[in-house]
């Protein structure tokens, strides 16, 4: 009995070693089969999360309300001036959009998938909406990641916290770039950053995403700066992402270069 168990165990283990290395990854169409179930659970749980957050914040609302009333009066006068300014800016944006149409797809986030190794996001747009692998995914707040896997009506996005994610980064106005990688769903780490002027709190921008030349996108903020004495290879920086991955609702996919 025990030898049969050993034999079967060894066979299946060898099978796994072969299949993980040499077989292609599982097709997304199979996981898309249970996606509706996940979407339902995801909707319930994110509503639950919103509900608890609302309960916590309601306590502060009363005092905040009084303070806000006075602020509204001030803001209303500013409003008039700003809306005029906005109209002008909107025109500028429109021109920029038509000259360099960066955004191809606007997609809603329908699920998150954080397991032992991966930090992935599922979106509700796929190949039939023009989504392609390696497309850069972003929000107005900052970089989200890149498209990893595409199916007809949905796609999986590898977020910037995934340990397999790589992005070139730089600090505005400083020279030099560095390669940052996700660290187990916690933060990004950039190594060998040449410019020693980088300091904690500096905003970090993308220098090169998915192997293509993209407009610079905000990646995050430096939270830790490690300088090894006598190190000629430069700084190691820890970067907190600008985007809260677990609270995403809508993302924008950029055209491939």
């Amino acid at each position, binding site marked *: 009995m*025990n030898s049969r168990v050993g034999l079967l165990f060894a066979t299946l283990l060898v099978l796994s070693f072969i299949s*993980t290395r040499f077989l292609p990854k599982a097709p997304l169409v*199979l996981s898309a089969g249970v996606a509706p179930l*996940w979407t339902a659970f995801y909707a319930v749980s994110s509503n639950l999360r919103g509900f608890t957050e609302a309960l916590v914040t309601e306590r502060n609302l009363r005092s905040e309300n009084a303070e806000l009333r006075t602020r509204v009066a001030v803001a209303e006068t500013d409003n008039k001036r700003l809306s005029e300014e906005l109209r002008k800016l909107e025109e500028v944006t429109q021109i920029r959009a038509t000259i360099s149409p960066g955004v191809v797809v606007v997609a809603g986030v329908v699920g998150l*998938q*954080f397991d032992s*190794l991966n930090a992935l996001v599922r979106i509700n747009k796929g190949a039939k909406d023009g989504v392609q692998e390696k497309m850069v995914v972003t929000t107005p707040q900052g970089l989200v990641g890149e498209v990893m896997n595409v199916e007809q009506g949905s796609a999986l996005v590898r977020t910037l916290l995934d*340990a397999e994610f790589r992005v070139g980064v730089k600090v505005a106005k400083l020279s030099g770039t560095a390669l940052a990688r996700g660290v*187990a769903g916690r933060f990004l780490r950039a190594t060998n950053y040449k410019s020693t002027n980088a300091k904690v709190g500096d905003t970090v921008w993308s220098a090169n995403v998915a192997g293509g030349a993209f407009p610079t996108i905000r990646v995050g903020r430096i939270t830790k700066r490690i300088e090894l004495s006598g190190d000629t290879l430069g700084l190691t920086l820890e970067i907190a992402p600008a985007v809260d991955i677990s609270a995403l609702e809508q993302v924008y996919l950029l055209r491939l270069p």
Partner: protein
Amino acid sequence: MILWRRIVFFLVVLGAQGAMGAVLPVFVSPPDLFLLTALALTSRLTPLWTLGIGYGLGLAQDILGAGALGFHAAGIMAGVLAAGFVRRGLSNDNSLNHTIGVVTALLTKWLVFIALGYWTRLDAMNLETLLYRFVPEIITTLLLGPFFFAFFNWAFGKSRSNEDRLF
């Protein structure tokens, strides 16, 4: 009667595993419900069945997660087999023994993950992954364990303990 409970069990496990990411903060690894399911299912089976069920559930996780085929399969198979050997002489209805089983299974699963990660040159398999993923995963899985096994008993009926089998 018992069948609909089993269907509900699998639907809830599948859905909860998917939804966990939305409820928990990003840096908290969700508990491994597939491993817990395999552990609970195989607690009353022979090692041959344990292997088959462990591998099958792991393969399902690989397919659903669109990952490398065989990765979770090998991990969960080795995990439940090791847990089965450790729990063989222990009572089934003791939460300490459940804990021992879960810890053994998780440790073995990650040992196989490390081997497979090295073999496939996986960048993600490094010391930080172990620290930030493995340690929280053990904690969340252990915390969820008692509730999970209670839920499993509701769906599948309470298993006979080793003491009962003596009579």
